[in-house]
């Protein structure tokens, strides 16, 4: 379980996060929606250790993560799939997957996980020898998710996996996210595409300028008038 309490982050004198608290229970899909600049990415980047927090706490099963180096957070079982996919374009598809397992030493386990990821994303198996830079946007996103899974995380944090992808591709990615979750991986999903995210989420938080304004089960938020108005677009007629 991931527990975030009163997390405050300053970016060059600006409050990026002013005291957010949230819980990501084991085995669930938790999503955080909100508009551009609300602090969603900052939240993930603080959890993974890329950004220093000003105050607050982030605990994984009671163990404080704040202040740990990035590789220790990863070892604690929390992996981040960065915004914009960020695959290593000069590495092959297979090498990208292996880079996700950089800290692991169990060769057999790594091979097993590669086979699992190939079964989730058969296109990656077909293209395993290609430089990742030659993949399409959707394929790169699949690779980024697969690479994130290669550390065998307990919690996978996804930063805007739908960004810049065609609706059909987004649907594919989201159904895979559900499948990964069924395999026991806890998901913390950040999205601007609130509609898609809320549909698959067990619990959801709405972030507005560094504060959580609304929270509740995903389905409940889909019906919430305030959420509808701000993030889902008003229904006409």
């Amino acid at each position, binding site marked *: 379980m991931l527990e975030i309490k009163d997390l405050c982050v300053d970016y060059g004198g600006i409050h990026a996060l002013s005291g957010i608290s949230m819980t990501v229970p084991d085995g669930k899909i938790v999503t955080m929606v909100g508009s551009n600049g609300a602090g969603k990415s900052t939240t993930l980047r603080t959890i*993974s250790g890329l950004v220093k927090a000003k105050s607050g706490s982030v605990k994984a099963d009671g163990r404080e993560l704040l202040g740990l180096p990035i590789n220790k957070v990863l070892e604690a079982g929390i992996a981040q799939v960065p915004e914009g996919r960020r695959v290593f374009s*000069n*590495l092959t598809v297979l*090498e990208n997957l292996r880079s996700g397992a950089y800290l692991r030493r169990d060769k057999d386990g790594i091979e097993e996980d590669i086979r699992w990821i190939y079964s989730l994303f058969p296109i990656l198996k077909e293209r395993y020898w290609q430089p990742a830079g030659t993949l399409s946007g959707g394929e790169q996103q699949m690779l980024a998710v697969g690479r994130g899974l290669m550390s065998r995380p307990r919690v996978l944090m996804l930063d805007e996996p739908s960004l810049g992808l065609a609706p059909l591709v987004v649907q594919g990615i989201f159904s895979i996210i559900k499948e990964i979750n069924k395999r026991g991986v806890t998901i913390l999903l950040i999205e601007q595409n609130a509609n898609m995210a809320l549909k698959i989420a067990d619990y959801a938080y709405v972030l507005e300028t560094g504060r959580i304004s609304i929270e509740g089960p995903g389905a409940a938020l889909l019906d919430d008038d305030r959420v509808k108005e701000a993030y889902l677009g008003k229904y006409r007629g």
Partner: protein
Amino acid sequence: MNFIARWFPYILSGVSVGGQYALIAIGYTMVYGILRLINFAHGDIFMAAGIMMIYLSAVMPLGGAVLLVLLLTMFLGFSVDRIAYKPLRSAPRMSVMISAIGVSYLIQNTVAYLTGGLTKQFVEIPWISDTVTILGASTKRVTLITPALTIVLVVALVFLINRTKVGMGMRAVSRDFETSLLMGIRINSVISITFIIGSFLAAVGSILYFTNYTGVTYTSGAMPGLKAFVAAVFGGIGSIPGAVVGAFVIGICETLLKGMGLTAFSDAFTFALLVVILVLKPTGLFGENIKEKV
């Protein structure tokens, strides 16, 4: 036959000089590939290896001296990064470059101080300094060893980069610091390894290079360093095969010009080549040109 007899010695020596430039150029190109930094101190690390060789071989057997020079030069490269570049990782690139120029002068001046600014006689290394005759051309054995050793080291290096986990880490870090961190790659270790490898190759190059010259002084690293840098740019900075090819081209052209009696122009030719390549193909022969989809 006359033609071959006339030019073969120059080509031979050109290949050898090219190999020496290649060993230096790889250090430039690897550091650039990862940090996007021209390590101006690299030529001086090369020179420092030569000076250390002179001092150490005076107090110990040659084998021990060579080994210690290799180790100390690797340590020097490692320290330069840790002291002068690492604190500036998130600083603008210009700051790191100025720091590199500072390190370059620091090494030069330290050596000038230690040697009193005098040219120190380089060690006579038996066997590799021996004269051998090949196809009617007589030359020092080092001329033959250099290109062979260069090729062996380059093949080993390419294997390391393309086939090992550390190499994969280096390629990942060269593309994206932050994502590498997210994969758990310790980028500072990877960068240190890069400096250590580059300095090791420069030390090997240094011992081979100065064997052909009478002495080493504190500015001895400047010219070979610059030429190796030109070789790296010519081949496409960031590319190891590019640096090697560029170094051999420059080494051979230079000695051929000397053979034509145009010694005075041989340096000018190298730098003219730099201008031409920067105008015609700024990315160099094998410069990065990977198509990326957004």
